[in-house]
């Protein structure tokens, strides 16, 4: 295939059309009122004229062409210090305007050709594209990882090579390989499914569009990919009925639309096939009345125009034959293909969304700083630039920044972190998905319509349905000294007084950022207490613990008293439930928690002896368990009657550190299964230590969720649990990290848990009383950051 990709020499005449007037350096509009702003990320950062807009880059081109500048490493470095955003191009009024980006890319191609480009960091990408056909060094099989949820769901995504469909969804490498970027294809496919749109993907056979290679000057790699893709598109059109290629990646969109058009015969190759950005596609549906967007939680957003979907799509008219001005005269610019109006129209069509514009928008949008290989070559600068854009967005009062490019989304997300305000950056498709009701195909029915309230988020997730983001909180105990000091309700009063108990419970929400609330005290001995176990004296930093075992000497005293639920602290718990439900019952889920039947039984007998019985006198074990099981059922029913939204059975004594999986299956599983079968609300089973070996058993008890420690493998647990329709809670380490570690360590561990797929981000166990509040807050921060990427 022949290509019309010009060399620098072929662009020399255009180079000499630049007067170096510097109009390209600033985004100025007469108005009135006049507006003016920086437009060149490189010029803003580096300042010297050579880095400044097209004036500077063309100086480099001029020097190379005249031989006055040697294409050495210094110059190559400078040539790659450009995001190729085209902001300068939008200002220019002269004849070279249409080829400004081409001139810069031609210099890069020259650098590659001479073996001095791209930059070392770019070479890794270039090598990856050449080897793996993606810039992320990812094996082919990983390309479809994002579809896993759909495979398990109700609408597996079509392999378009096997099943015909009119729409090819060209996912793009960032959507497929970048962890944060996967929200885009997921949201896109979800929306397609909700709308009943027939589409398919190339899956593992999709190749990189070549955009990155082209931007870096790796033209041979670009051509190879583009030619292969064009051939695939033709074949899919011919054999599988593909008429439309939809992309949700701005880079792919630009490549397929504009770079591929440099191929001789592009028009013929793409005959009958339309390339459209997903946002344009949704906009058409909106115009046709086929996009029923429902109200989302009210929010103010601002919109960032990506360069690749915006001004890069501008068409330039040139007086080719001289009939209007003179041959080669630049006549005008047509922005009809630029994706400016569609995203704005969609945002404005979502009830609850208020769009507030930044100063630099549309053709004068300020680049996020990540394009043209800058994110890879000069990451620090890219982030710094993104932070400026985020700050500009924040000046509008927007709570979220919305865009339609995965690179922008990622880079702006990094910028938001740098700014430190954590402005969420979201893809528009995510918002559309949120605003649409229907069957997403993820195996869960999305409510659609809005950001969920905390209670809804918790209960929907516990019910196995889709949520807007992973709930964060604690599902064990969180009687922390810092919280007590923050809310004024301290142990031991908060162990027994319903008001203090409720106050401390709510402090988790108010001060730690938790999204649900614990009832029933700050320990896991209430049933044992009601059975008559002696308890140790609590202190501000020490919870109730077992000091005496009523059945230590034998089972003669084994009894399930009729007044069980009026014993111990149950009356206080009843009052605490009432307070909590009154105060936050609408907004936050409330859970009850006690020790589970096995742990309770071990407390009554003494753990050591009880464990011995499991091997030597199993009938005694069963005898005690029969009693504690019934008590457990009653307690749980009672808790639900008080308004508990779910109930946690903590079974530390049944952990793998104390018993084998075989014993667990023999003694614990049947009891838990019976309890789960006997009650109507959702149960969560918490077990300490490395539960890897019993996770399948735990998930097979009928509970709605399992809570695991950091010693357990979250990824594995999620995989097992999802198969069983069970949610996983966890698993930030409470002792080593939350108590003894730094906030950064807690944050990192939280991110790791989220990346591993936890369904509820929680501590792996009860939080140690002396854990710093700042550490605990990192869970919420990590969750928020994770979902704003």
């Amino acid at each position, binding site marked *: 295939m022949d290509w019309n990709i010009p060399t620098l020499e072929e662009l020399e*005449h255009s180079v*000499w*059309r*630049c*007067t*170096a*007037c*510097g*109009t390209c*350096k*600033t985004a*100025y509009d*007469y*108005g*009135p*009122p*006049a*507006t*003016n702003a920086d437009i060149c990320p490189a010029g803003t950062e*580096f*300042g*010297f*004229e*050579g880095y*400044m807009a097209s*004036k*500077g880059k063309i*100086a*480099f081109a001029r*020097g190379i062409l005249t031989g*006055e*500048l*040697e294409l050495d490493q*210094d*110059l190559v470095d*400078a040539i790659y210090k450009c995001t190729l955003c085209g902001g300068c191009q939008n*200002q*220019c*009024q*002269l*004849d070279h305007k249409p080829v400004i980006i081409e001139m810069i890319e031609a210099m890069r191609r020259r650098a590659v050709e001479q073996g001095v480009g791209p930059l070392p960091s770019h070479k890794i990408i270039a090598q990856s594209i050449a080897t793996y056909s993606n810039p992320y060094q990812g094996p082919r099989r990983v390309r479809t990882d994002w579809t896993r949820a759909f495979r398990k769901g109700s609408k597996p995504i079509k392999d378009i090579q096997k099943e015909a469909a009119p729409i090819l969804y060209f996912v793009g490498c960032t959507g497929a390989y970048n962890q944060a970027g996967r929200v885009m294809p997921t949201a896109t496919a979800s929306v397609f499914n909700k709308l009943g749109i027939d589409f398919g993907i190339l899956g593992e056979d999709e190749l990189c569009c070549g955009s990155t290679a082209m931007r870096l000057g790796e033209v041979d790699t670009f051509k190879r990919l583009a030619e292969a893709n064009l051939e695939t598109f033709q074949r899919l059109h011919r054999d599988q009925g593909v008429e439309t290629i939809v992309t949700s990646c701005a880079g792919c969109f630009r490549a397929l639309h504009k770079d591929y058009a440099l191929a001789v015969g592009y028009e013929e190759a793409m005959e009958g096939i339309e390339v459209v950005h997903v946002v344009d596609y949704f906009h058409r549906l909106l115009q046709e009345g086929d996009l029923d967007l429902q109200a989302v939680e009210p929010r103010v957003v601002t919109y960032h125009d990506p360069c690749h979907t915006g001004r890069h799509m501008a068409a330039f008219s040139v007086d080719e034959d001289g009939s209007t*001005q*003179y041959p080669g*005269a*630049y006549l005008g610019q047509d922005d009809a293909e630029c994706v400016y109006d569609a995203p704005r129209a969609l945002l404005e069509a979502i009830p609850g969304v208020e769009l507030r514009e930044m100063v630099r928008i549309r053709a004068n949008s300020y680049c996020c700083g990540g394009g043209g290989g800058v994110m890879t070559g000069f990451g620090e600068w890219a982030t710094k630039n993104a932070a400026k854009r985020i700050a500009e967005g924040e000046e509008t009062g927007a709570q979220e920044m919305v865009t339609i490019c995965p690179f922008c989304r990622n880079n702006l997300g990094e910028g938001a972190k740098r700014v430190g305000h954590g402005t969420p950056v979201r893809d528009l498709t995510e918002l559309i998905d949120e605003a649409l009701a229907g069957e997403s195909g993820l195996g869960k029915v999305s409510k659609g319509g809005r950001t969920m309230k905390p209670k809804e988020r918790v209960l929907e997730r516990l019910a196995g349905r889709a949520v807007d983001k992973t709930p964060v909180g604690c599902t064990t105990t969180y009687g922390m000294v810092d919280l007590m000091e923050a809310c004024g309700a301290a142990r031991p009063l908060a162990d027994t007084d319903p008001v203090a108990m409720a106050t401390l419970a709510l402090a988790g929400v108010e001060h730690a950022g938790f999204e649900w609330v614990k009832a029933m005290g700050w320990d896991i001995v209430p049933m044992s207490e009601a059975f008559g176990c002696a308890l140790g004296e609590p202190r501000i930093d020490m919870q109730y613990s077992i000091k005496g075992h009523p059945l230590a000497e034998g089972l003669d005293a084994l009894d399930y008293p009729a007044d069980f639920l009026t014993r111990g602290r149950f009356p206080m718990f009843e009052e605490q439930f009432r307070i909590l439900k009154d105060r936050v019952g609408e907004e936050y889920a409330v859970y009850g928690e006690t020790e589970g039947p096995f742990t309770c039984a071990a407390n009554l007998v003494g753990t050591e002896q009880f464990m011995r019985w499991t091997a030597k006198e199993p009938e005694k074990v069963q005898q005690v368990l029969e009693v504690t099981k019934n008590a457990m059922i009653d307690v749980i029913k009672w808790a639900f009657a008080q308004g508990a939204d779910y109930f946690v059975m903590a079974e530390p004594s049944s952990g793998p550190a104390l018993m084998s999986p075989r014993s667990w299956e023999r003694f614990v599983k049947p009891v838990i299964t019976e309890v789960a079968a006997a009650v109507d609300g959702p149960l969560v089973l918490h077990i300490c230590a490395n539960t890897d070996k019993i996770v399948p058993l735990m998930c097979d008890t009928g509970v709605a969720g399992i809570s695991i420690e950091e010693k357990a493998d979250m990824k594995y647990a999620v995989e097992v649990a999802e198969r069983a329709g069970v949610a996983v809670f966890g698993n930030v380490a409470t002792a080593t990290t939350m108590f003894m570690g730094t906030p950064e360590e807690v944050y990192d561990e939280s991110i790791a848990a989220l990346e591993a797929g936890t369904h509820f981000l929680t501590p792996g166990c009860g939080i140690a009383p002396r854990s710093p509040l700042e550490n605990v807050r990192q869970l919420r921060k990590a969750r928020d950051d994770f979902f704003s990427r």
Partner: protein
Amino acid sequence: MTSPVDTIDGTSIIDELREIVGEASASSAKHVRYAYSYDMSFVLPKLPDFVVMPTTVEQIQAIMRLANREKIPVVPYTAGTNIGGLCIPERGGILMDLKRMNRIIEIDDEAHYAVIEPGVTHAMLAEALQVFDLRFGWPVGPPSASVASCAISHGIGGLNARYGLNSQEITSMEVVLPTGELVRVGSCAINGEAWHSLLPLPQLDGLFKGWLGSSGVITKLGIGVHPTPPLLKVFTVSCADVHDMYSYMLNLSKYEICDDLTAVSWWLSQVPIPSPYRPKPDGAPEFFSFANTTSWTEKEREAKEEIWQMVVDEEQAKGTSLKVTEYPEEALRARTELPSQIVGSTKNYCKEGGAGISWPGTFTPAKKWAPVYTDWKRILIDHNLSPAVRMSMYRGVHYGMLRAMIPFSKETPEAIENARHAIVECLKVDLEHGGIPYKPPVDFAIEINKRVHPGYLDLLKRVKHLLDPNDIMNPGKLGI
């Protein structure tokens, strides 16, 4: 890459510069220097040895002290958008890029002045002034050009007919002398908070205006700004010859009703200027004029229109070729919507010509416009260049700006030399008629110095030596 003057007495100049302005703001890399080696003009490219971007007055002082110690030339630079090669280093040295000193320090919307740093651009100041409904005499330079550089070089703007040159708007100055001392002239010299007036003190500002950056580095500038009347009315006429246009402008200027009173030849009214020369169509006027007026009330506007109509009637009664006419729309927008990307980007100047543009830009008595234009037209057409000439009245007096915008290709040395030769020939004609070039390239300075009174030249040299004993400040630009 090292510079030819990078080692003096075992000291690395670039290291010292970096110590002053920071690692990232000083460079001797050739690709960095290269972008400063040329501009739009015919002036041949020359490389600086270093580029620095100071951000404070103290940094500038330190650079000047270093330059004096080592006797290294210093060329102040803001945007490099002049078309006289004024920032091209004649003798290498340190190019001082001031774009990052771009604070608008104050806008006094009551006393009507602004205090700005040298890197403040027309676009920045226009945006800031509009908040207060204030305006300035915006030139036809790019929006990214420097307000201060234009003003201290006697640049012109869109309010020339009303307020005079932009240099006449200067109200106070802060300057780092070539020897590194900081001085202030005008009211700010007495009270650091007062930037309202140069008068009634001795006008020491004259030491720094029109010196082409060879007598100091302006670090702060007070400039007068003006309220913006809401009603704009542009009166446009055309004439078949330059004499008739001169007669009309002379007549209208005496009423002092215009913000800008300008005439442009047919070639300059085109967007873009025809390049190479093309004859104008038969019957097309030789000159167009736009007279920009602004008024506070409808009555005032009507009164101005009455005066203008009276002048038109009088001129037509003389039997001149004057006609009330429409001015080409895009060109008119470029003249009234300033700062402008249309003329600012040189779209209507050198779009067709190529990368080059220069001028014979002069202050010339109005009565000499016609003869000078006639000669210029002949010279330029002989060089296959369009006579794209502009004539503008200054502050109601009967002299003003006469210039020809000459676009040319820079792709060949021959094209550049052709333009240079034509422009210098035009300049000679103007000098013979009592004109004076402004923002002159060195070629012009040489022609001026051939003609000036010896006492003037001697005084110029003495003052220059007094301020810049080591001749390090943009040396060579004055042709002395």
